C-alpha cells in the first residue's frame, strides 16, 4: 500500500517522508485527534493551520513522539517514517528525535553558551570524534540557522542573552546540528516581532532544500508564504489537505473556506 503511494507520488519527483494513517490521539477520555491521514513529502514545507485547540500541535508532537512525555496521552494508528512505524515497540524515541528535530513555540535555548547549545545534540549522539569536528558541526549548523555572522565572535556568551529572533534561529541551528531528516516547528514565529519573523521564514524556505519541514502556524499569511502543502485541522479532524495555493484560493470544504475568510476560528 505504502509502496503504491510512493510510485504514484514519484511522478511529482517528491518522496513521502512521513505517512500517517488513521491516527487517533486521546488525552485521557478526550479524543483529541480523529482519523488523521496525512502524507508529508520530503524537501517540502507542510503547514498545519486551524483554530486554537484543533489538535494541530498535538499531531505535530506525535511525529517525533514528544507526546510520550505526557502520561495520559495515547496514540493509535500508524505513523511511518520512511516506511517504518515510529510507534513500533522496537523504536527508541531518543533515536527518532535525532532524526526528527523540533523547534518550539517559545525560543528555549539552554542557559549555556551559544557553542554548547549547538554542540549539545552532536555530543550526546557522538557525531563528532574530536573538538575540530565539533567546531565544524557547530559552524555549519549556525550557518544553516542563518545566525553565524551575528554570533561567530561571541560563541562563548550565553545563548539566553540573544534577542528573541536570534534565540529562535539558534534553536533552529541546534535542531539541525543533529542532522535530522525532518524538522518540526511548532509556531516558531509566534513570540517574534515581524522582522525576526521574516528572517525565520526566509530561513525555513532555505531549509526546504535539505529537510522536510512541518510547521504549525496561526498565521494564514505565514502558511501561504512559506509552505507548499497545507493541512487544515478543525476540532481534531483533518478537514482538508492539499497544495497551499489550492487551499487558499479554492478550498473544497466549506469549513476551510470559512476559516480562511475569518468566519470561524
Amino acid at each position, binding site marked *: 500500500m505504502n509502496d503504491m503511494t510512493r510510485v504514484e507520488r514519484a511522478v511529482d519527483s517528491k518522496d513521502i517522508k512521513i505517512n500517517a494513517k488513521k491516527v487517533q490521539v486521546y488525552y485521557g477520555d478526550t479524543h483529541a485527534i480523529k482519523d488523521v491521514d496525512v502524507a508529508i513529502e520530503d524537501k517540502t514545507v507542510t503547514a498545519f493551520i486551524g483554530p486554537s485547540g484543533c489538535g494541530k500541535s498535538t499531531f505535530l508532537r506525535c511525529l517525533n513522539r514528544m507526546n510520550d512525555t505526557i502520561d495520559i496521552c495515547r496514540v493509535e494508528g500508524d505513523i511511518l517514517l520512511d516506511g517504518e512505524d515510529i510507534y513500533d515497540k522496537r523504536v527508541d524515541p531518543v533515536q527518532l528525535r535525532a532524526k526528527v528535530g523540533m523547534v518550539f513555540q517559545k525560543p528555549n535555548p539552554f542557559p549555556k553558551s551559544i557553542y554548547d547549545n549547538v554542540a549539545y545534540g552532536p555530543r550526546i549522539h557522538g557525531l563528532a570524534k574530536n573538538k575540530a569536528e565539533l567546531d565544524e558541526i557547530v559552524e555549519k549548523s549556525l550557518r544553516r540557522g542563518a545566525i553565524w555572522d551575528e554570533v561567530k565572535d561571541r560563541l562563548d556568551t550565553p545563548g539566553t542573552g540573544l534577542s528573541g529572533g536570534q534565540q529562535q534561529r539558534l534553536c533552529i541551528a*541546534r535542531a539541525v546540528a543533529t542532522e535530522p531528516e525532518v524538522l518540526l516547528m511548532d509556531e516558531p514565529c509566534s513570540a517574534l516581532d515581524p522582522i525576526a519573523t521574516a528572517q525565520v521564514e526566509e530561513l525555513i524556505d532555505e531549509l526546504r532544500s535539505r529537510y522536510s519541514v512541518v510547521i504549525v502556524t496561526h498565521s494564514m499569511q505565514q502558511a501561504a508564504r512559506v509552505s507548499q502543502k497545507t493541512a487544515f485541522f478543525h476540532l481534531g479532524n483533518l478537514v482538508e489537505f492539499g497544495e497551499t495555493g489550492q487551499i487558499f484560493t479554492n478550498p473544497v470544504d466549506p469549513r476551510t473556506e470559512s476559516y480562511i475568510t475569518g468566519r470561524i476560528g
Partner: protein
Amino acid sequence: MTDASMDSPNTTRHATSLMATDARTKKRANAEKRFRAYGIVAIATGLFFLIVLFASILSQGIPAFQRTVVSVEFTLSPAQRDEAEGTLFKTKAYSDLFIGALNDQLTESGVTVDFDQDAIERLLGKVGGTIRTFYADNPDKLGEAVQFDLAASSRVDGYFKGRVSRDTLQDSRFLQLSDLDLVDALKEAGIIKQAFNWPFITGADSGVDNPGGAGIGASVVGSFFMMLVVLALSLPIGVAASIYLEEFAPQNRFTDLIEVNISNLAAVPSIVFGILGLAVFIQFMHLPQSAPLVGGLVLTLMTLPTIIISTRASLKAVPPSIRDAALGVGASKMQAVFHHVLPLAAPGILTGTIIGLAQALGETAPLLLIGMVGFVARGYPDGFVAGFTEPNSAMPAQIYTWAARADVGFYEKAWGGIIILLMFLLTMNIIAIILRRRFERRW
C-alpha cells in the same frame, strides 16, 4: 463589534469632576490605607519581639564569654619542688608555696588582707593540685617565672557579674562574706580580673557543681558529627527520591499517596522521630546510646521531608521548555534531567538542604529520647570514628542540660550556648543565601 451596535443598559455616566473623589473611591482608598496600617503594625510587632529576643539573649549570654581569673606569677625552684614532693601532703605543700607567692604580690602592691588556706580553696578550688600537675607535665619550667591564670569559682565569678552581692550572700562552704574582702583586695591589687572565656568555647561539660568549668566545645563537635551523618544520608536520598518522583514516576494513586505522606511527614512532631530512633536504632539495631551516629540517623529522618519538598519545588521551577529542548534534540530523559534540569535546580536544592540542616542542628526533642541530653561530655572524642560512635552531646541538648541544672552559673552558660548555636545557624543561613545568589540563573 462596536458599542453602537450593543444595547447597553442605561447607566449613569461619570459626570462628576476628576478632582473630586466620590464616596466609593474614597471607601476603597480608606480600605487600602487601613490594610497598609495593619501590615506595618504586624511587621513592627514582629520586629519588637525580635529585638526583645536578641537583647535578652545578648544581655544574658554575653557574661558567659567572660570569666574571672586570678593571675599569679609563680616561680618554683627545683629544690622547692623536691622539698614539696618529700612531704606527706604534697598538694598542701604546693598550695602553701602558692599562698606565699600570692602574699608577696599583695605586699608588692601595698594591699594587706588576711586570708587562710580554706579561703583560697573556696576562691580557686584545689590550687596545689593544679600547680603540681603543671610542673609534672612541664619540668623544664622549673626555676622560671610562670604566669598562672586560675579560674575563680562560680560564686566569685558571680560576684563580679553582679549575680552575687554582699547583701544576699549567705555564708556557706562555697563562699563566705569574709572571702569577698579578699576578692576586693585582690581586685585592688590587679591580681583578680575578668578575661575572655576561651574554655567556654573550647572546653567540655563539667560536673553539676562546677559551672565555671563548663564549655560547649565538645558538644559542638558532637553536633558537627551529627550534621555529617545527616548531610551524607539525607542529601543523596532526598535528591534521588525527588528526582524520581518529579521526573520519572507515573502519575497514579500510589505516587499520590507517597506524595501526601511525604508532605505529612514534614509536619510530624520531632519527638515522634526520637521515639522511632530509640525503638529502631537503639533497641532493635543495638547502635550505641547517646552517639552522634544515632542522633544523625534520627535527624536524617526528620530532614528528609524538608529536603524532598524543597528539591521538588526547585525541580518544578525549572521551565518545562528546557526539558522539551533537551528531549527535542534527542537527549534521553535521564540526560535531560542530569544535564539541564538538575544544574538549574541546584541552587534551590542546596538552599533547601542547608535550611534542613539548620533545622536539624537546632533540634532537641528527638535527642532527649536517644540519650544525648543529660550526658556529661567530659572530653572530646578521640579520633574520627569515635566521633560518630562515642557518647557525646549536641549543642541544643547541652543547652537544655545546662538550663535544667540548679546552679545559676549554668543558666548563664545556657544563654551563652544559645549565642554560639545562633551564630552557627546564622552562618549556615548566610551560606545558603550566598549560594543562591551565586548560582541563580536568570533567563
